[in-house]
């Protein structure tokens, strides 16, 4: 029995770390622009497809790390591009317009991909995954890789935020966006960088997801993206730690719900849990209520 639990814990860690990577993108953007980037889930989906294209179309067989970096850079640039073209002009417009624009961008991305690839695709294996056994516990090297890469990226982000000037600028902007330019910080560039990093993480998550669950479809951004968004909110949107926490909580709840209950209850449990958390902690577990001068 405990082996089953341990087995599911590995699965939960895998799913949770993927959710966490996506959730980070949402939280980073929310932190600097107080905006929900509804296109983020679709960038996640593009990450999976980008990996597919790179793996299948290129005549040269590239190593895993190179593909990962390429995917992150390409999706990152796309994210920054969307910000520049669609969100920046709306910085002074009512907030809801930017959100709707994000929704629109997401729809454009999703349906373009859907039109080009109406049927789900299969992600090829990028390397030989071996199965390791520890007693009755089986773990594949793929799972270890996914969890390892995800954790590595999260640690890298943590370093970026706490030890670099970019990170400091990002945190400053999320505190008080108006005074930051007065201190000589190029706010626009920082925001673009934030989108680049956030989208890059989302793209990486897409690639990892495609490797873990090899069937990818154009609509997976909607399903997974919204779920990761919920994870970000459970943790407290805008909080980096919260995103990670929320991602693992949601991953854990989903995997455990499927493991021990009829699978149709999975979504019901996850969302009811979310609702329950929000009723008691409206700003998420690690979130802060917005400050308001009265």
């Amino acid at each position, binding site marked *: 029995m405990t082996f089953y639990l341990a087995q599911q814990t590995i699965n939960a860690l895998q799913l949770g770390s993927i959710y966490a990577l996506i959730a980070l993108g949402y939280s980073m953007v929310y932190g600097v622009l107080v905006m929900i980037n509804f296109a983020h889930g679709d960038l996640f989906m593009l990450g999976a497809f980008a990996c597919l294209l790179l793996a299948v179309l290129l005549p040269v067989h590239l190593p895993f790390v190179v593909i990962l970096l390429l995917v992150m850079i390409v999706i990152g640039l796309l994210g920054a591009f969307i910000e520049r073209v669609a969100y920046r002009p709306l910085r002074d417009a009512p907030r809801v317009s930017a959100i709707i*624009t994000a*929704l629109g961008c997401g*729809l454009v991305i999703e349906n373009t991909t859907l039109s080009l690839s109406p049927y789900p695709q299969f992600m090829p294996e990028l390397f030989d995954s071996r199965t390791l056994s520890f007693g009755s516990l089986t773990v594949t090297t793929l799972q270890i890789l996914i969890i390892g890469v995800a954790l590595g990226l999260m640690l890298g982000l943590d370093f970026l935020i706490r030890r670099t000037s970019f990170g400091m600028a990002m945190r400053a902007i999320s505190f008080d966006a108006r005074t930051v330019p007065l201190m000589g910080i190029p706010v626009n560039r920082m925001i673009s960088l934030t989108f680049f990093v956030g989208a890059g993480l989302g793209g990486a998550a897409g690639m990892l997801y495609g490797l873990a669950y090899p069937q990818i479809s154009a609509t997976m951004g909607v399903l997974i993206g919204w779920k990761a*968004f919920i994870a970000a*909110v459970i943790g407290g949107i805008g909080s980096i730690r919260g995103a990670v926490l929320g991602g693992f909580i949601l991953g854990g709840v989903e995997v455990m719900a499927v493991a021990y209950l009829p699978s*149709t209850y*999975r*979504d019901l449990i996850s969302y009811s849990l*979310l609702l329950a958390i929000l009723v008691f902690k409206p700003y998420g577990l690690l979130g802060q209520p917005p400050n308001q001068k009265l």
Partner: protein
Amino acid sequence: MRHFLDSVARCRWALPALIAVGFAFVVACEYFPLLNDYSKIVLITVGINIILCSSLNLVNGYMGEFSVGHAGFMALGAYASALMTIKWLPASVFELPLGVLFGGTIAAAIGFLLALLSFKTRGDYLAIITLAFLMIVKSAIENINYVGGPRGMTPPVLTNLPWTFFWVVVTLWVIRNLIYSKFGRAITAIREDEIAANAMGVRIREAKILAFVTSSFFGGVAGALYAQVNFFIDPKSFDIVKSTEILVMVYLGGIASLGGSIIGAVIFTVLLQVLQPLGTWRMVILPLILVLLMLFRPRGIMGMRELTWFLPAGELFKRPKP
């Protein structure tokens, strides 16, 4: 020319006359082959979308929240009505109105709960609660076998053009009456400045309840009409994609505007039909139009403005000549 249009707009008989003519026309369509079946379905869809759009506009536009859960109320109304017409009611001429009323009421009851949640939470966090609500409704339906679970249900086809027309008029009339009353003023005050509204003695909680309950009631009505025209409903019909479509209509046509709701619903439905040959590319073009529109007109085509015809007589103030 402008003077002429202005006096037409101020003529209090124009709109009721138009409605009467429209109603006569749709009734005639039932007995004479004036429209083919395809056109009728399109018109019914337009009508349902107008109801969805204007009811969501009440919460998202006038009250300034961001509810993404409207498809959930649609689902509640659809399934409630389907239960009535498939399992509980014998076939009769009362089936459709009863089904619709029941659907609306069930949706309104849940809307009331959502209103209670909105007392403590606002803005983005309320948006997420509405999202969770939508997902819960959808997965709850999937798990209840009595309503067919994921396999769906097949309600009898009962909706017709006259009924749709009737419900469109009722929806717009009721919402318009609400807006141009002290409750409507309270609702828009919440959007703009809840603290100031409180200081003016505005009954915030009452207004929020009214907005959510009315919005969800008509969302349920639309769902019921949809169920009875579509002859097949399943949980997948009422997911986030559907909610997103309704959102697109609202922000396209214009927030806080009934005329905008009509325009948004019409453009969306018609464009989707007209662009049918393009397949899934339709949903690339439409959002692109929306994004472009947001860049130039962030509040939508008729954002926060209203057709003079919709204003009640008491609000028609003489505008000073420029």
